């Protein structure tokens, strides 16, 4: 418990949309130093991009449920597009339907962030709070990776690789 308190007190607070104050590696190192081996092992597979690890274990049921529901809505958006109909979303805000791809990803991440708020509610200095912190740091790191110039370079590298090489 004291280790959890120490870890959570030492971590900078996270705010949606801001530059991540620490890197994922720094967080992992801090967590490895402060948490027990058992807790650290439980923290390792927690991932915002997959509901379960390779062994099929969930980091936290509520997180797994959130990610599953997100998955269902994404699948529904894809199906609706193929079938040329309006998607019937259960969890994601309807604004994602007409938003451009960048705004849509941001809206989805914002939704995840808010869901993590709910998951974390009432959890102070608990392992859930550490897991939520890791997931939020993943969201911020991904959000921060969105860059106009770099994105244009990626597009150019696929669309016109020879030109890219010449430059």
């Amino acid at each position, binding site marked *: 418990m004291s280790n959890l308190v120490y870890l959570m007190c030492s971590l900078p607070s996270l705010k949606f949309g801001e530059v991540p104050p620490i890197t994922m590696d720094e967080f992992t190192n801090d967590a490895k130093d402060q948490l027990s081996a058992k807790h650290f092992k439980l923290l390792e597979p927690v991932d915002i991009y997959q509901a379960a690890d390779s062994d099929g274990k969930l980091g936290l049921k509520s997180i797994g449920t959130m990610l599953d529901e997100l998955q269902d809505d994404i699948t529904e958006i894809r199906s609706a597009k193929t079938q040329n109909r309006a998607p019937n979303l259960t969890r994601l805000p309807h604004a994602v339907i007409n938003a451009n791809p960048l705004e849509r*990803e941001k809206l989805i991440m914002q939704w995840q962030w808010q869901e993590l708020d709910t998951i974390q509610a009432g959890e102070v200095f608990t392992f859930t709070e550490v897991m939520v912190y890791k997931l939020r740091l993943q969201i911020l790191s991904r959000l921060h990776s969105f860059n*106009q110039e770099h994105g244009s370079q990626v597009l150019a590298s696929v669309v016109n690789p020879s030109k890219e090489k010449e430059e």
Partner: protein
Amino acid sequence: MAGAKIKYTKTERARQKKILKVSLRMLPLFEAMEKSLMSTINTIAERIEEIRQVIEKNKQAAEPWVAVMSDSHVDIKTFISVNKIITKHIDVAGVRVEQYESVDFNVMPIEDNTPLWVDDAIVLMQEQLQLLAEIECLDEQIRLLEDELLDVRARIKLFENRRIPNAKTAIRKIGQKLQDDERLTIATAKVVKMTQKEEVMV
């Protein structure tokens, strides 16, 4: 023709007349071919310009969301690549060229947990790659047509500046020489006749 010796014979004159006739008949054909090639090249160049505008328009339309392509979670480059540009042989203004048909893509299957933006990026990239492939084919068509145009222009120059004037000159010179020879023969004959008459009178 410069430096080449003209044979002052009726056969040679007939041959030069044939060359002139054929050249005068061929010249308008080559001129028409030149016009056709130039017009085709211009049409293709206009099409390339149109495609470039579409590419630019697509690029501008993607501008507001292109930042998502730098997503640290996804490497979009692994999702799509060009396998083969499919073309077919056609004749354009008498030149055999490759016409763009389609692009065969290697597209990695999209898994359920793949972010949604990947779908849009693949559609955009496919369209841009198809348009660029079409430009590539059209550029090659222009290159081949320009080669042909150079060849046709060289032929026109050859007809206009050498074959036709040379044939005309040769026909004129042979005509004059043959006429001179004829006059000389007649004059000689007359002289001989007069000499014979004088001898008889003496």
